């Protein structure tokens, strides 16, 4: 087994074990902290896929910001007092069936599909390539995102603030 395969299996294990803890932990703070190894593992997969810029952004935004915000809200609402409350609803058997079925179905499809021939090489300098892409062919998406961010800023402030 070469280094790449070793790294891939280690990262995949990290992602899936972490993800399992996220959905399974009774303690919500533990679930939120388990997001950290999961998301870092996904960042590691991006490294193996030569997506440096996405890796750095994944760590900066997902691990460093979204997880912090989720932790904030858990501490602001229930903290760990949720331990005394039932954390699961009555759909567990159904959910197991649906998710297991979906996974089996997708896996069955994707091992049969012949994914075309290997693609050409990626552009050498990743942040530059992303920048050129954003500013030229995908400029509309780029500008619209700023509107989306503005809308969610306004919306979240209106919703979260205490009413006068």
């Amino acid at each position: 087994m070469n280094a790449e395969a070793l790294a891939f299996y280690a990262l995949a294990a990290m992602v899936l074990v972490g993800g399992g803890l996220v959905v399974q932990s009774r303690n919500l703070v533990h679930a939120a902290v388990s997001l950290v190894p999961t998301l870092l593992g996904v960042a590691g997969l991006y490294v193996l896929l030569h997506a440096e810029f996405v890796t750095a952004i994944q760590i900066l935004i997902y691990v460093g910001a979204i997880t912090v915000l989720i932790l904030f809200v858990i501490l602001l609402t229930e903290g760990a007092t949720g331990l005394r409350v039932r954390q699961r609803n009555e759909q567990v058997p159904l959910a197991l069936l649906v998710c297991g079925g979906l996974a089996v179905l997708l896996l069955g499809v994707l091992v049969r599909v012949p994914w075309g021939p290997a693609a050409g090489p990626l552009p050498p300098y990743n942040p530059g390539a992303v920048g050129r892409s954003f500013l030229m062919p995908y400029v509309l998406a780029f500008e619209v995102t700023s509107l989306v961010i503005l809308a969610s800023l306004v919306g979240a402030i209106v919703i979260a603030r205490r009413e006068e």
Partner: protein
Amino acid sequence: MPLDWAYVAVFALVGAGMAALPLGIVWLLAPRSAYPQKRIPYESGIVPFGEAWSQFHVRYYLFGLAFLLFDIEVIYIYPWAVVLRELGGFAFVEMLIFLGVLGVGLAYAWKKGALEWV
């Protein structure tokens, strides 16, 4: 390129090992005497009451959300910074619009008092 990040991973592992090492030494060397009073959380000398968790003000969340939404801009500005020299004027105008829209957001949050610690 993945090799660069292999260094990062090795550093993280070695660093964690080096951080855990003194904890191991403490575990070997340090005395251990447990009695319940020693483990009471410190609360200015009185016996702690209630839960350590209690209701916190929503203001923490307001700062958190403003942070997250302004932090995301960075995703778009870093690539812009790298290619600006090569693409020139129109790239600058695009960023002007982008930051202008977010400036409106900052002004709104400011005016609505979401940035006040009250």
